Structure formats: C-alpha cells, structure tokens
C-alpha cells in the first residue's frame, strides 16, 4: 500500500490547476471578461424582450390576469390608423433629422477644420454644447421658446411686424418644430464625428489636388467627401437608430400632439401601454417596430458591405 499524503495531493492538484490555468487561461479569460456585460444584457434587455414577445399574444391591462388572444393584437395593428400615422411620423422625423443634422454638421466641421480659424475651440465647444443637455431640459425649454403666446420667438416675430407661427399647435408645423429642436441637439454630434473623419484625411492628398488646380468644390467633391464615406455611413446608421427610437424629447415637448401630428412609434407604444393600459397591444407594436429597425439596419449593413467595407 502506498501511503498517500493528503498534503501532497493538495499541492499536486494545485500545481495541476496552475499548469492548466497557464495553458488555458487565454481560452477562459475572454469569457470571464465578457460575463458582466453579457449578464446585464441577458437580464435587463433580452429577458424583458422575450417577455414582451410573449405578452404580445395576450390581452392584458397590466394588472389583472392576462387573457390569451392569439394574433389579435397583430391583426388589430394592421387596421389601426394611429399605428400607421405613427410609423409615418417616425419616418418623416427620420427623413428630416438625419440628412439635415448631417449636412449642417458637415458644413460646420468643414468650417471648423480650417487651421487658421480664430476661436476654433470655442466655436467647436458651442456647437457641441446642446448634445450634452438632457432631453427633458431641452424639451422643457423648447416648449417655452416655441409657445404660441408666451414663446419668445413669436413675440420677436410680432415685434418685426410678422405673423405669429403656430410652432407646436398646428399639425403641419409641429413636426417641423420637433425636427428643428432635434437638429439643434444632434448637429454638434455629427459635426464632431465629421471633424474626426476630416482630421484622419492626410492633408497632402487635398494639397496635391489643390496644386493640380482643383477648385474648392472639386477638392471636396472628389477627395474629401469620398474619403469621408465611412464616417458618413457610421453617422447614417447612428442617426437612423437614434431617430427611430426618439422618445424623451417628443414625449416631454408635445406628447404626440397636436392630434397625432408628432406621435412617433415610441410615444404610441408608451401611451398604449401606460395611458390606455393595452400592454399586450403595446408589446405587439414594439415587436413589429423592432423588426422594422432590424430590417433597415440589415439593409444598411448589406449596402456597406457591398461597398467593400467590412467592419
């Protein structure tokens, strides 16, 4: 019989463990590193979304027992004019915000990229400032500025002998006002990302074109803008996702009114769930909405990959 000394075994297994660890840690460690993030997403995002998907097949006011209702919520959605209005509003909002905030952002970035520009840092800071202000603060102030009667803007128009504008109380102008406020917020962000893109363009390239006699517009059109393509693409993706998911600003500024003129999908979902207590229905809208965003993003992905860019 061989007397086994427990201490030796302990030491041995510890050594084994250490050997195993030094051999395999590169395989194990990445999982350890991603565990917290993954856990948070599983618990606070994926689980609720699965839950929401289940609820979407029920009729439920949030408090009493849910009643299974099959596809009823989804069918109802197709017939609900407010759903289509809100989808249209979301699209309109996106079509207003994305190109305009990017165009203004690009213009500002091109201007700010001039090396001899006086007060560059100050201007850059000012343009970016609105981005760090909360949507609640922005919307509260915007409601105050764009008010029909109390609003300083209308008072200024009157002073100039012009007519008042129903910034937030007319179904044709309300969305425009929301878009204007959003551009105020987003312009600086687009500017900053573009500025970063511009600074990564080697100056000799543009300089060479200039020496070759290219006009400013030609330099931009044939050198700068094509080189900014990845930046532009990134901004399009980020801005579309932002615009589709815009909530705080609209919720506080107009709560979807007047009528349904600014009811975007997120506001519609929120109001369906919390104000009219149709939690099942709200979940169904949410699931459909998610499918729409995913489709759009997939298409964008395709386009970008076809352009020869693999992330």
């Amino acid at each position, binding site marked *: 019989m061989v007397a086994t000394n427990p201490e030796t075994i302990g030491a041995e297994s510890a050594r084994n463990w250490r050997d195993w660890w030094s051999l395999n840690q590169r395989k194990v460690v990445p999982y350890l590193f991603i565990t917290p993030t993954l856990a948070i997403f599983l618990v606070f995002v994926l689980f609720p979304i699965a839950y929401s998907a289940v609820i979407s097949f029920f009729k439920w006011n949030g408090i009493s027992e849910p009643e299974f209702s099959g596809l009823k919520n989804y069918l109802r959605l197709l017939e609900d004019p407010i759903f289509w209005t809100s989808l249209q509003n979301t699209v309109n909002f996106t079509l207003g915000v994305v190109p305009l905030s990017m165009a203004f952002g690009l213009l500002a970035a091109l201007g700010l990229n001039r090396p001899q520009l006086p007060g560059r840092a100050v201007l850059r800071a000012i343009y970016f400032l609105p981005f760090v202000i909360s*949507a609640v603060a922005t919307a509260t*102030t915007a409601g105050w500025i764009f008010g029909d009667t109390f609003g300083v803007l209308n008072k200024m128009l009157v002073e100039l002998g012009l007519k008042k504008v129903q910034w937030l109380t007319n179904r044709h102008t309300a969305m425009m006002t929301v878009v204007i406020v959003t551009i105020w917020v987003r312009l600086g962000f687009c500017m900053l990302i573009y500025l970063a893109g511009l600074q990564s363009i080697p100056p000799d390239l543009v300089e060479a074109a200039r020496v070759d006699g290219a006009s400013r517009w030609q330099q931009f059109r044939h050198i700068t803008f094509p080189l900014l393509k*990845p930046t532009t693409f990134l901004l399009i993706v980020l801005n579309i996702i932002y615009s589709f998911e815009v909530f705080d600003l609209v919720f506080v500024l107009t709560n979807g009114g007047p009528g349904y003129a600014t009811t975007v999908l997120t506001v519609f979902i929120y109001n369906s769930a919390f104000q009219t207590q149709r939690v099942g229905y*709200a979940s169904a809208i949410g699931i459909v909405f998610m499918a729409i965003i995913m489709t759009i993003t997939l298409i964008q992905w395709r386009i970008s990959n076809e352009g020869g860019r693999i992330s």
Partner: protein
Amino acid sequence: MANSAMSAAPYTDRLSLQAKERLATFGVWLALAAGALIIVFPLYWMLATTLMTREDAYSRELILAPPQIIFDNYVNGWNNSPWPRWYGNTLIIVVTSVAGLTLFGLMSGFAFAKYQFRGRNLLFLLILSTLMIPLQVLLLPRFLLVARMGWANTHWSVIGPHMADIFGLFFARQFMLEIPDELLEAARLDGAGEFTIFTRVVVPLAKPAIAVLVILGFSARWNAFAWPLVALTRQEMYTVQLGINYMRGYYFTDFPAVISMVVVSIVPILIMFLAFQRYFIEGIARTGIK
C-alpha cells in the same frame, strides 16, 4: 518639390491668394459665428427667463433681457422640492453605473478585440443588435422583473441596467483593436497572466478611451429619463430629470422656477464637458471612425 511651382508665380498673385484665403476664412468664421449665436440663443433665453419676475416672463410684450435681475426663481424652485436628495440620488446612480459601464466596457471590449474564442462574433452581434430594441418595449417587463428582484424604488433598479452600454462597448473594442498585439505578446513572454496584462498593460494604454467612456457615460446617465421614470415611483428616490418632470407636472406651473431648476441641472454636465472637452474630442477622433 511642389513649392517650386508656387515660388515661380508672380509675387502679387501670391499676395492676392493669401488675401483671398484670409477673406474666405473670415467669411467662414462669420457664418460659423452666426450659427453659434443661433445655437446659444436658447441657452441664453433659458438663463434670462430664470432671472425675470414671473410677470415679465409671462408678459405679452417682448422682453429680451430681465429689466431687473432677481434670483427668486432659483430660491423658489430649489425650496419647492427636495433637490439635495434628488441630486444625491442622481450622483449615486451616475457614479456607480459609470464606474460599472467603464470597467465592464473595457473588459468586454478587450475580450472582443484581442481574443479568439468560440461564439465571439455571434455574441458581439447579439449585444450590438440590442441597440435596435426600442426602450419603450422593455419598460414594463423590465419593471416587473426588477420588482420581482426586490429592486423596485432602489438605486439599483436604475444602476443595474445602466451598467452596460453598447456604445461604450463598441468604443472600447474599437480602441483595443489599435493596441498592437506585440505589446500583449511581449507581456506574456515576461510571464504576465491575462488579468495582469489587462490591469497593467491595457488599462493604462486605454486612458483616452476611459475618458470617453466616463464622459459619454456620465452625460447619458445624468440625462436618462424614460427608464428612471418607470422604475422610480417614490419621490424620495427621484433623479434630477424626474425632479424637473415632477415640477412641470405640478399643479400650478411656475415656469421661471421650473427653468431655473433646469439651468441648475445642466451646470454639472456643462462643467464636466468644458473640463474634459479635449479628452472627449480626442477620444472620439482616436477610437472612432476609421
């Protein structure tokens, strides 16, 4: 040399070229300054409103600057509600969740950038795809979950979900991709374990990324609205944004007082931004967008 062509040109032409350039710069400056004025105006108006009497603020005449400057609105707004408590809540929530999202973002960004492991791309895509989920769908089920966990009306109900951030993860990963593999290999050859590599090599190198994560995270968490609105129903647990919303929904709106509290709520974020602007902009430039 390219310059030789330039120096061959007549002196006067070069001068006019320089003058033209200067003129163009001035024109651009003028346009940018005009834009800046438009951008600053709402902020100015915010401030001006808070320094006016209620009568002046609601006046039917155009009053562009407070006729006499008063601070009553700040006093009224501040005394109207338990703001110290709300700022305390916000600070606890923001600091804890930013610490979490920075640490976890760096860890997972590092893992996704610098390791080969099974399921890497799938998991990364999975996490990225949650960006496409509108928050409003999650609110109620997430609240039911949080309540079940006993977290309803605690700071944790907000901190928990806010401790991971897709943009943070994405930025961190992009940044880590730029760290040369040789550096990590060299550390490994020196006998460093993976954790040591992370804490001793990666984290020090990632300081600019940390700055971006902290600043972006801070502003996002400070400004968060929809989820706290649902998760925190007890007034004593409110954050600053909920406080402003509370004041707006108050029986009688005293707008100058509300706006003065809006101004106060913006101050910390402005200080943060102005103090760390440089890191922030450099960070985005370095990490982003290649």
